[in-house]
């Protein structure tokens, strides 16, 4: 177990900066997940921690020791690669035992440790097989076995589940979580999959365009996203964004023609300014057409089994609404979309930064009664 400290880490390729000063602190035993869209620099950051990429500027320390100039093997990290990177010419046993062989561990000791890791990962029956003779999930476990057997200070995972089919991915996700609970090893897990990120993380880092957008627990980030980017990236279906304007006494005008009483103290200072309002699809309510709510008609309904998502056309942007229960709404129906003010998120229109604490963070547990006023 180890702690990891990243201070002002930068990375440039041919004078083009791809990571712009990353600061992170990861405590002993934490499962940290770095999530972000393709090309945001998350894998580069992981590879810098591993020692596979040079650090252009800044420092990375493991257990308070700066590791910038250390070889990958000297950093005490083990990595699980996206394509598993199993040695195709070695058996499962040789693959798992390879780091020990390199470290000069005696044969009997090596066999004992490999057997231990194989038992933990239920690979005992496959030790003589070559990677090509294994299924995707088994290969994934061999890759983890090779990481575990070294007893590293730090586990690094580079999108290890993205090559698996949907069912296996969920299964392996749970296995990784169990394994972490059992070994309590400090882990850094990179993914672009928000469900993996939310379910695995003790601490979540959302990255975008080479910068950290937000760090927090999955719950904190979900409830109070620091920017419109984070809000839109986490959550499926994605958060709805509506243009709005702050009126007197912190009330809101949602463009083009809905007015809502919010009574937010924080919004007062933004009076007269245009902002972006974020609402999660699960925080909206569909009702019969009435004078209340945003008038809309249902364009498309997605059936998800447990719930359905209605994509509604309004005079403004399209709005997605999660429908629970047996609400009898059909495609083409005219409806009214009801807002719960305590579930609204406010973002600056220009740079997408969150405005104040936001209603959602403060009053998420507030009454679910409708407090919507319309004109």
């Amino acid at each position, binding site marked *: 177990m180890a702690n990891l400290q990243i201070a002002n880490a930068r990375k440039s390729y041919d004078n083009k900066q791809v990571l712009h000063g990353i600061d992170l602190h990861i405590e002993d035993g934490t499962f940290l997940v770095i999530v972000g869209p393709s090309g945001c620099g998350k894998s580069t950051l992981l590879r810098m921690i591993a020692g596979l990429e040079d650090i252009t500027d800044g420092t990375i320390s493991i257990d308070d020791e700066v590791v910038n100039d250390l070889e990958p093997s000297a950093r005490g990290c083990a*990595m699980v*690669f*996206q394509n598993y*990177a199993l040695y*195709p010419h070695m058996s499962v046993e040789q693959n798992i035992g390879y780091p020990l062989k390199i470290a000069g561990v005696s044969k009997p000791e090596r066999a004992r440790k490999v057997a231990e890791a194989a038992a933990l990962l239920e690979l005992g029956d496959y030790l003589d097989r*070559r990677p090509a003779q294994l299924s995707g999930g088994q290969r994934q476990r061999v890759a983890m076995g090779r990481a575990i057997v070294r007893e590293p200070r730090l586990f690094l995972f580079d999108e290890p589940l993205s090559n698996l089919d949907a069912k296996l991915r969920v299964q392996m996700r749970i296995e990784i979580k169990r394994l972490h609970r059992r070994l309590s090893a400090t882990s850094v897990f990179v993914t672009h999959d928000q469900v993996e990120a939310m379910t695995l993380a003790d601490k979540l880092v959302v990255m975008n365009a080479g910068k950290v957008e937000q760090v927090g627990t999955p719950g904190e980030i979900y409830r109070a996203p620091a920017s419109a980017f984070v809000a839109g990236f986490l959550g499926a279906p994605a958060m709805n964004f509506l243009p709005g304007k702050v009126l007197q006494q912190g009330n809101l005008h949602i463009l083009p023609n809905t007015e809502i009483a919010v009574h937010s103290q924080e919004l007062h200072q933004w009076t007269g300014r245009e902002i972006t309002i974020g609402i999660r699809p699960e925080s909206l309510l569909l009702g019969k057409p009435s004078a209340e709510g945003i008038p809309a008609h249902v364009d498309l309904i997605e059936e998800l089994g447990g719930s359905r998502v209605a994509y509604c056309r309004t005079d403004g942007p399209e709005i997605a609404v999660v429908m629970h229960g047996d609400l009898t709404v059909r495609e083409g129906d005219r409806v009214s979309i009801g807002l719960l003010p305590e579930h609204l998120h406010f973002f600056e229109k220009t740079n997408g930064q969150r405005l104040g604490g936001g209603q959602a963070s403060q009053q998420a547990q507030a009454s679910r009664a409708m407090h919507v006023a319309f004109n």
Partner: protein
Amino acid sequence: MSTAALQPVLARPIRRSVRRIGLSAELLPWLYILPAVLAFGVWIYEPLIRAFMLSFYEWNMLPFSPQKWVGTQNYSNIFALQKLWQALGNTAIYVVGLLPMSVAIPLAVAIFTHDLKGRWRNFYRALIFVPMIIAPVVAAAVWRWLLDPQHGILNLALQGLGIAPIDFLGDPNFAIWTIILITGWKLIGFATLILSAANANINPSLIEAARMDGASSWEIVRDIRLPLLSSTALFLVMMTILLGAQWSFTYINVLTAGGPLGSTTNIYYLLWDFGFSSMSVGWSSAAAVVLFVGFSVIAFGLFRMIERYSFYDN
């Protein structure tokens, strides 16, 4: 539209045109492979069968002279020739002598130049590949000048160092090794190209995984690169065994004509010599059949080995 409905619409025009030229759909695939079958038939199998048949006849290759059936006499005659055993022995020397230049050196060059960047990479590539693109007869002529016992630059250099000039192509102790070196010099580029491609094809994350596992550069070569290059290296070994003697043919023909005292002749040169110098087609064909059977057995064994050492990384 369902697929069932779509299919007849797409299939109809093809069927119609097939019917028009009077071919059933079952014949079509055969039509596609016909050019390849014809080429194989005319250039490979027909000559093979012809050679097998000719090996039982005595004939001097003149179109109007009769072919006389002699049974297996051609075989017993060639096996009684000391020249054949010398040529077979030399063929083995050619193969063994070429292996370092067709496999070992290219393997080392491919691995150690893998990480070269920019200008140095281009420089080494040019250096290695230039011999490959020179026409063999031209190369042979140039080597003849370079190796000339009196005026060749190599001997002038040796004389400058106080060493007596060496008749590289005329001394039976040197001639075969000279031909081997020239053949190998021509080969290195090709073999390096093949091995560099195989080396570049190794998944870089395997190398990264090995680095994470603590492997040093040498351990990565020993444990990852060499095992993964083994099937390509074996392929080159096979090519050298099967074709090494053929590759040297031009240089033997131009530089030594098999001499001095048969010291540079090999089985291919002997075949050619039987057929086109001595005009004894029966002997030439008998030697060719023996060679074909012998090399088929070797090729079969090597193919099995290549399969065994091929690791597919997916």
